[in-house]
């Protein structure tokens, strides 16, 4: 008994010394937790080697998992202390919850944080906007992708106003092609690609969104009801049987050239470029009158945070600092067209469709999806309600007014901003 504890006593410091020596000699290896398993090859071959070249003392491993498992798995890994040193952050409440529990470090003191506007940081900041806990990486922009060949055949040019939009739809329909490619089956398209796409033009982007969060506006106000009225007019331009059309159905229909306009977002670019054999273009959500200010949904999607329990906080912060740099922004935006850098520094992108999307930032005002911050913390969940109601409005089983009332009633059930 005595001898064994003695030898242990001698053994442990020796081991520690060995580990310390090892750390000096070998570079530190950091691991990144992520849900982007589609991007594994891009991180491994294109992004990380660049960092490792300039930081020879740090090796980085990208360790993604299935998107649907990510939130739950990350939570339990962080609780158990087995998570990687770096963590890709989901926008808004999921990551905010982790920060509140002390799982993520505040990152305000990174020099690179100055490269991001407050809007770009919203998704990973506390409600008062004072602390940011993840480095914003990319956002996705909503808009309409169209089939250039079909437009040429029908003699249609990209519309700028709502009236032109519907005139174009009429022309396309007369030309015998499905004008609008969207289904109501899955729900989220009617919310994300429908309402949250065209809506900002009516409720004036951030101004309207913040007023809604502050309780100064309601979803039953005309500015918030109007997008539903416009969406209700989409029905005749959708494909036959759109009620059962799913998201992959819509993607396939568009890339097969059977539909002309795909209400969507920039995240489709790389997939569509591979599938479609025709030329594609994009136009931003139309405005009410020519000359009106345009608004786009420029939605933060992914960021990078530092695990508070990491054994290599200094190195992890060094990596986060690099992710905040313009160098990373250019690298990432070109490796993954359609995922746009949130960095202030202008990024040159080679993909023309991605360039078109990002050019709207210059002329339109950016906002985020109105249901993502704060307003989806209770039950019923506002975002999920938008899915359900959006499909019902487009399918015609719910009037725009009834839809707004139902949404506001659901919000009133738990959200009391005045108190």
């Amino acid at each position, binding site marked *: 008994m005595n001898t064994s504890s003695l030898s242990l006593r001698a053994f442990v410091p020796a081991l520690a010394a060995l580990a310390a020596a090892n750390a000096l000699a070998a570079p530190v290896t950091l691991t990144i937790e992520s849900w982007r398993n589609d991007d594994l090859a891009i991180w491994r071959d294109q992004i990380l080697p660049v960092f490792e070249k300039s930081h020879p003392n740090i090796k980085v491993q990208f360790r993604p998992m299935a998107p649907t498992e990510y939130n739950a798995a990350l939570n339990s890994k962080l609780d158990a202390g087995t998570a990687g040193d770096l963590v890709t952050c989901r926008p808004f*409440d999921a990551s905010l919850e982790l920060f509140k529990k002390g799982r993520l470090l505040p990152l305000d003191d990174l020099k690179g944080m100055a490269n991001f506007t407050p809007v770009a940081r919203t998704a990973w900041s506390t409600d008062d906007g004072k602390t940011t806990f993840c480095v914003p990486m990319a956002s996705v922009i909503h808009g309409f992708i169209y089939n250039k060949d079909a437009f040429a055949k029908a003699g249609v040019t990209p519309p700028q106003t709502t009236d032109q939009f519907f005139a174009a739809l009429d022309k396309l329909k007369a030309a015998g092609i499905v004008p609008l490619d969207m*289904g*109501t*089956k*899955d*729900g*989220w398209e009617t919310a994300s690609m429908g309402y949250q796409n065209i809506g900002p033009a009516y409720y004036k982007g951030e101004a309207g969104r913040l007023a809604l969060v502050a309780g100064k506006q309601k979803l039953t106000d005309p500015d918030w009801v109007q997008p539903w009225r416009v969406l209700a007019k989409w029905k005749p331009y959708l*494909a*036959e*049987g*759109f*009620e*059962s*059309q*799913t998201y992959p*159905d819509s993607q*396939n*229909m568009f890339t097969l050239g059977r539909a002309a306009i795909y209400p969507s977002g920039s995240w489709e670019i790389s997939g569509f470029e591979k599938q479609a054999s025709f030329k594609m273009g994009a136009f931003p959500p139309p405005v009410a009158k020519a000359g009106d200010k345009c608004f786009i949904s420029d939605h933060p999607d992914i960021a990078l945070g530092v695990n508070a329990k990491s054994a290599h906080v200094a190195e992890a912060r060094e990596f986060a600092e690099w992710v905040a740099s313009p160098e990373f922004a250019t690298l990432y935006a070109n490796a993954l067209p359609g995922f746009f850098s949130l960095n202030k520094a202008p990024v040159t992108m080679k993909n023309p469709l991605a360039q078109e999307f990002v050019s709207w930032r210059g002329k339109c005002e950016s906002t985020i999806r109105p*249901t*993502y911050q704060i307003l*989806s*913390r209770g*039950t*019923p*969940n506002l*975002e*999920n309600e938008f*899915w*359900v*109601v959006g*499909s*019902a409005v487009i*399918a015609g*089983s*719910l009037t725009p007014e009834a839809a707004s009332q139902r949404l506001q009633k*659901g919000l009133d*059930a*738990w959200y009391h901003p005045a108190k």
Partner: protein
Amino acid sequence: MRRPVRWHIGVFLAPALAIYTVVMVLPLLETLRLAFFRNVDGQAAYVGIANFARLLGEAVWSDAFWNALRNNTEFFLIHLLVMVPLAIALAALLSWPRLRGSAFYRTALFMPTMLSFVIVGFCWKLILSPLWGIAPTLLKAVHLGFLFHPWLGREESALFTLGLVSVWQWLGVPMLLSYAALIAIPGELLEAAEIDGIVGVSQFFRIRLPLLWPTVGVIAILTFVANFNSFDLIYTAQGALAGPNFSTDILGTLLYRTFFGAQLQLGDPHMGATIATMMLLIILAVVCTWLVLVQRRLVRHEF
């Protein structure tokens, strides 16, 4: 003389009992326990029946709950009124001695029951797809294209369609149960009926069907329990939101959505457990009532 202690009974029961306790009894008790707590500032706090009061009292919850219960009842009625008569009719045909290839029909009709619900949901979604489905193509081929509608996408038809898909999937079980009961009827009984001049359809309704009632009773209650616990088909075909507009939301999907969350909705284990407890109570109440009022009164014949 004292009887020896029959310790072997305990020893042989122990493994089964231990496994049953771990995988069934403990989770059930834990579910019941969860239903009486609520998460307050990160801590579980005992709240008595407040969760049940919320589920039945607050419009946000009670609307969803009653809607799910109504849909679930409808889902069950579709099975009771379509599947059970169909199963008995098929069993009667299969037990008809002059039917050729009855083994083939039996296997073919039972086949869907052995398929995974994922495959069933996926296949039917494809069959009924308005864009590339085989259903619209077939109907158009016989000039009946106008009959096709995107059934799964419409509020008025989605639940009924899924009910029929579920009937298609599970038909084999009640069919085989009825079939087994029908072929167990002794030949002398049927011969006696024939001597009395009761043959054909009339023989089925006056001799065979009355002998089948106890089996039908068992089928009905099994179907009820299965339907009120069902979740998988709706989830694979319509997703966690059980669309369109919650028209296919049943208790199982409501429980899932509440317990685990969906998209931006965070999971709430306590309200989820409350719904699960309500499901348990509903099933328990109906099964007990059924056993006391109906099943005991059905006359069983010993041959």
